[in-house]
């Protein structure tokens, strides 16, 4: 039976490899994917959205629905971890082998963290704000922001970090990000456009419709950054402490 299965799998695999011959070559300019849709994006993206970064234009404007639900997926992943780990009553004390003898007294780590965190957060804000002009965007900037808080929790301890950035606030920001993204979409519905059609914002902000695309993308990136930042930190909180937020690893 096993041999038959192996034979079938190998046969199927060989067939799949054989069919790849019919696929267009790598980077073939005449392939179907390159000859219709992408030429439109490459030629028209700047005229239509006034965003020089093509990737962001596709990600946050042409493909706005997809990115919105990516943000929702990040949000749901955070909620799932929260539902599973948080609020579980601990029956016995944590049995961690080689638990460190001290928490938050390593001067070298603390000072390095103090040096690093502020530039990291500044850089994250730059990445978010410049996402539609240069490489970067909400996901990347949000991850850097979240990592700066995780660094704070690693170098100091979890409790003092939670005093600065409370769990409720973290969860509030994770929901707020999705709300900003969906809210921008809904408001453009109210203003008479389609869902997430930023052109409708032009009249409200007093700018041309093309420029409104650029500003809409910026707003959407900010929403993404909020959610990603908060979920990153929330994941760390729950996974590192086993859900009781008592002490970090």
């Amino acid at each position, binding site marked *: 039976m096993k041999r038959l299965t192996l034979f079938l799998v190998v046969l199927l695999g060989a067939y799949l490899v054989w069919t790849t011959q019919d696929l267009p070559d790598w980077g073939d300019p005449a392939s179907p994917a390159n000859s219709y849709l992408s030429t439109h994006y490459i030629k028209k993206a700047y005229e239509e959205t006034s965003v020089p970064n093509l990737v962001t234009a596709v990600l946050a404007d042409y493909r706005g629905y997809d990115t919105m639900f990516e943000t929702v997926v990040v949000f749901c992943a955070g909620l799932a971890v929260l539902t599973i780990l948080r609020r579980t009553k601990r029956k016995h004390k944590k049995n961690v082998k080689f638990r460190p*003898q*001290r928490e938050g*007294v*390593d001067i*070298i*780590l603390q000072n*390095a963290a103090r040096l*690093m965190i502020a530039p990291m957060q500044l850089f994250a804000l730059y990445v978010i704000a410049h996402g539609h002009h240069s490489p970067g965007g909400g996901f990347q900037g949000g991850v850097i922001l979240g990592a700066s808080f995780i660094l704070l929790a690693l170098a100091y301890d979890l409790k003092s970090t939670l005093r600065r950035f409370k769990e409720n606030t973290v969860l509030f920001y994770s929901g707020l990000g999705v709300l900003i993204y969906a809210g921008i979409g809904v408001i453009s519905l109210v203003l008479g456009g389609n869902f997430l059609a930023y052109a409708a914002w032009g009249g409200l902000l007093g700018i041309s419709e093309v420029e409104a695309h650029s500003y809409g993308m910026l707003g959407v990136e900010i929403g993404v950054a909020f959610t990603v930042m908060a979920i990153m930190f929330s994941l760390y909180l729950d996974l590192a402490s086993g859900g009781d937020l008592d002490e970090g690893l």
Partner: protein
Amino acid sequence: MLDAIVVILTVSGLFFFLGTSVGLLRFPDFYTRMHAAGKGDTLSTMLLLMGLALYNLHHPSPVSILVSFKIMFIGVAVFIASPTATHAIMDAGYEIKLKQWVRRKEPTTPYAGTERRKGVAK
């Protein structure tokens, strides 16, 4: 002239990277390996980044100077982060009392991780 400096910096950076990898593979225990990784990695990254920043100044213009400045910023981040990470990993090994390497096989007492920090208030 600029080319010569760039080549010297890059080649010495690569040389130290080679030394790092050899040390990482050939040193006898955890601490000496981390020592090789931490020091060599930082130095060679700095040398390579300096070489790149200088190479970028071939045709000096505000844009290329800005790019060189950004490259040096990466160097600053690496210079702070890499030794700190090495220190944290080394410290974790020290805490769980990893044995250090000795030339003669004698029974040695392992480090006492807690005693070292007696004076430090929690």
